[in-house]
């Protein structure tokens, strides 16, 4: 058994000594139903005349549909409706279209070409599940198998099969310009040239299925008021509702979605496939329709955490400092986009991990292969690359003959350091976490490491956006024409050097925060504007002066007229004590004690 241990000695001035929630017993609002077995699964909802929907799926990784003959299936006992691609009003979608990201690339029922094993092409609605299964077996499909590609690096080669017609280069397209997400910070090539040694590593992660206890599914039930109720396993209720309304070209006001709190999700129940299918079945038959994956479908077509491949190159100086780091990352999106495009952006924002490295570059690809589409799962976009980074840190420690914890503390970021995505680090606590971990593991670290603090040594020179080399390699379509190397700065072509403190040729301090309440411990922009151009100084003063704690301004309190006209939730004065001052409380250092 473990217990939470609050290490009060760290950052003592940032909060009151008492935590109000963490480590305290709290009754979850849904726990009574769980422990008494009353929390309903979606499959617990029973309806008279319930019909069952099952899909005809591709047995091939990649194939063209030559013909489909469902005449025998349609005549079978109990079969009420055969649902084909033409029955889907808008049979092309991409999940993140709801936030305007990406192109429509995935049909609900595939009309002409399948791009992964298990891709649905037709659905049967029957009076019993057994009848639906039997009818699915009776559908005759003639396939023309196509060459397939299952490896991300193979998929980027010029002659690789085109997996996804919307993205003929087999990659998601970023900003209508590049076939990958770029990150450029400083000059990695110069950093590598100055380094005493180069350490390279390659890290590969397999897909992981979320394996929920209740498989994905939904039951759609026509209501008398021309609405459809949908009892669903979704973990993103309104996302699924909006996706259903979009695919079926109907007003979302006609949809009444009912979710639940049991059955498991872990990211595997956001893809909103089963809801439009069941609602479509109900619309076409006028009867309640259940579309529920069996366990085999859950494993085969349920979108997993995607596979990843990361190649990391470090330049390390004689003191053990990482002076340059470059990444080439590949997210295997499977045949369609789902959420991997977003995972790439998320991962890029995380680079180069919690370390202060003056020169960083990355090319991260969202690659289409003939595998099951990948989706969300617990920190997707971050966990994979974090694994790669920490393995690489161990490799760097071995290469420099350093204690791995000392190596991490030496290279750790600190409050006030500029991160590669142009935000100042704040509330950093890696150093303290390393110190606590070393204690807990009885791992001896150097006296120098013992005296370090996240509050000291950051900022100053490290608060600057360095002069940065940019390039235009990897434009959309380039890789179809020739074999273009994938690592940053490896493809040749025109490069430019942006002056220190600038981004895209414009002087910047850092990317501005989107909301005032995101202002944490460091100023978002330097109040001292340049007298020369009336804009921010090209070389702004970032972070604290040397040897001074990071300035922590109070966040701007919203004005009375800005407050939302929503009654506040009842407070719990007995358990919640007001904080002495409003500061970010995202930094925790804790240890886990085994009892």
């Amino acid at each position, binding site marked *: 058994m473990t217990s939470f241990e609050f290490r009060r000695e760290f950052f003592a001035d940032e909060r009151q000594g008492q935590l109000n929630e963490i480590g305290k017993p709290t009754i979850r609002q849904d726990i009574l139903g769980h422990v008494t077995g009353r929390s309903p699964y979606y499959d617990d909802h029973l309806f008279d005349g319930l019909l069952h929907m099952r899909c005809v799926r591709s047995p091939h990784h990649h194939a063209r549909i030559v013909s489909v003959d469902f005449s025998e299936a349609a005549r079978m006992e109990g079969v009420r409706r055969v649902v084909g691609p033409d029955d889907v009003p808008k049979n092309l979608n991409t999940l993140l279209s709801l936030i305007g990201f990406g192109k429509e690339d995935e049909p609900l029922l595939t009309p002409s070409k399948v791009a992964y094993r298990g891709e649905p092409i037709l659905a049967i609605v029957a009076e*019993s*599940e*057994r009848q639906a*299964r*039997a009818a699915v*077996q009776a559908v005759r499909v003639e396939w023309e198998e196509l060459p397939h590609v299952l490896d991300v690096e193979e998929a980027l080669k010029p002659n690789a099969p085109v997996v996804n017609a919307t993205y003929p280069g087999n990659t998601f397209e970023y900003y209508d310009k590049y076939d990958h997400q770029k990150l450029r910070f400083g000059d990695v090539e110069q950093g590598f040239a100055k380094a005493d040694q180069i350490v390279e590593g390659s890290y590969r992660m397999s897909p992981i299925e979320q394996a929920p206890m209740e498989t994905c599914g939904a039951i759609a039930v026509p209501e008398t008021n021309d609405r459809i109720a949908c009892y669903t396993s979704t973990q993103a209720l309104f996302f699924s509702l909006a996706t259903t309304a979009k695919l079926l070209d109907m007003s979302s006001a006609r949809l009444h979605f009912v979710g639940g709190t049991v059955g498991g999700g872990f990211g595997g129940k956001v893809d909103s496939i089963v809801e439009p299918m069941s609602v479509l079945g109900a619309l076409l038959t006028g009867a309640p329709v259940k579309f529920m994956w*069996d366990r*085999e479908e859950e494993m085969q077509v349920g979108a997993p955490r995607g596979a990843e491949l990361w190649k990391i190159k470090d330049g390390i100086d004689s003191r053990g400092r990482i002076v340059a780091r470059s990444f080439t990352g590949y997210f295997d999106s499977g045949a369609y986009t789902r959420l991997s495009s977003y995972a790439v952006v998320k991962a890029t924002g995380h680079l180069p991990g919690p370390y202060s490295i003056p020169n960083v570059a990355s090319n991260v690809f969202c690659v289409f292969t003939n595998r099951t589409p990948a989706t969300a799962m617990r920190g997707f976009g971050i966990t994979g690359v974090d694994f790669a980074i920490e393995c690489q840190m161990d490799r760097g420690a071995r290469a420099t003959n350093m204690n791995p914890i000392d190596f991490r503390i030496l290279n750790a970021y600190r409050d006030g350091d500029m991160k590669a995505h142009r935000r100042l680090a704040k509330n950093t606590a890696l150093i303290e976490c390393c110190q606590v971990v070393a204690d807990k593991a009885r791992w001896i670290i150097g006296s120098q490491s013992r005296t370090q603090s996240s509050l000291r040594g950051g900022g100053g020179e490290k608060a600057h956006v360095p002069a940065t080399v940019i390039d235009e390699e990897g434009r959309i379509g380039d890789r179809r024409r020739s074999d273009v190397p994938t690592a940053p700065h490896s493809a040749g072509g025109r490069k430019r050097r942006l002056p220190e403190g600038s981004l895209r040729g414009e002087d910047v301090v850092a990317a501005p925060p989107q909301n005032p309440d995101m202002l944490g411990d460091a100023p978002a922009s330097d109040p001292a504007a340049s007298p020369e151009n009336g804009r921010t100084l090209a070389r702004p003063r970032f972070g604290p002066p040397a040897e001074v704690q990071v300035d922590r301004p109070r966040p701007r309190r919203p004005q009375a007229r800005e407050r939302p006209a929503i009654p506040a939730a009842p407070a719990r004065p007995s358990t919640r004590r007001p904080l002495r001052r409003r500061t970010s409380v995202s930094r925790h250092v804790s240890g886990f004690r085994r009892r």
Partner: protein
Amino acid sequence: MIKVDTYRAVAEAEASMDGQSRYMGGGTLVMRDLNYGSYGFERLVRCTDPRLNSVRRDRGRIVIGAGLTMAECAENRDLAFLAAPAMGVGGPAVRNMATVGGNLFAPPPFGDFATAMLALDARVRTAGGEELGIEALLASRRTFRRIVTEIEFLPPPRGGFRFRKVSRVKPKGVSVLSICALLPQSGGRIRGARIAFNGMGATPLRATGSEAALEGRPLDRNGIAPALDAALQGLSPADDELATSWYRRTVAPVYLRRMLLERSHAY
């Protein structure tokens, strides 16, 4: 539509069976097939004869009903030596339903209890009164169409029966393979060992090479060495989702060694 017929007498149940019927013991295999669209049958046959759940002694042999559940078997004092293989089957819900008779027909990765029956050299009896050895049943089980009613075997000598289930997920993973051994000793030496593996072929199989190599040998590191070298004779594990054939071949002698040397696993 699936039809379910329940009979009081097992002979009636057997007489009613035809090509479209499937006998249902505990249902842990049949219902899965049914739910996942197996079309080999249209009718389920059940039997409520209480004798199917009995445990008795007959001239020194133990006779257990084929309908005895794994949970009942694990709780039965007279069957304490079978508690480990019975508890190795599924979780509590599965053990509450899964039967001894059904396990004889369970393909890998299931069927670990049948491995114990093979090590014990059990004999099975059918509703029609026919008797046959466990090996003959296992060899013909894919096409066997009679209802097994009883299984009988001699109780093992004290300290002479061992079972080990090998899974990659602890404590309740699916079996990669399992090993069961009957190890009678005389004067500190093995006499007439029977060693059975599950997961090393399409059915539980005897490691006849190891059995022969153990004859007259003591159960110590040197004594079992020839048996380990011969462990894979006659076994042909397959590649599947749980492990490759190579992996099973590699680990089988290792687990056999651990089982033979670790006395804590002996009943």
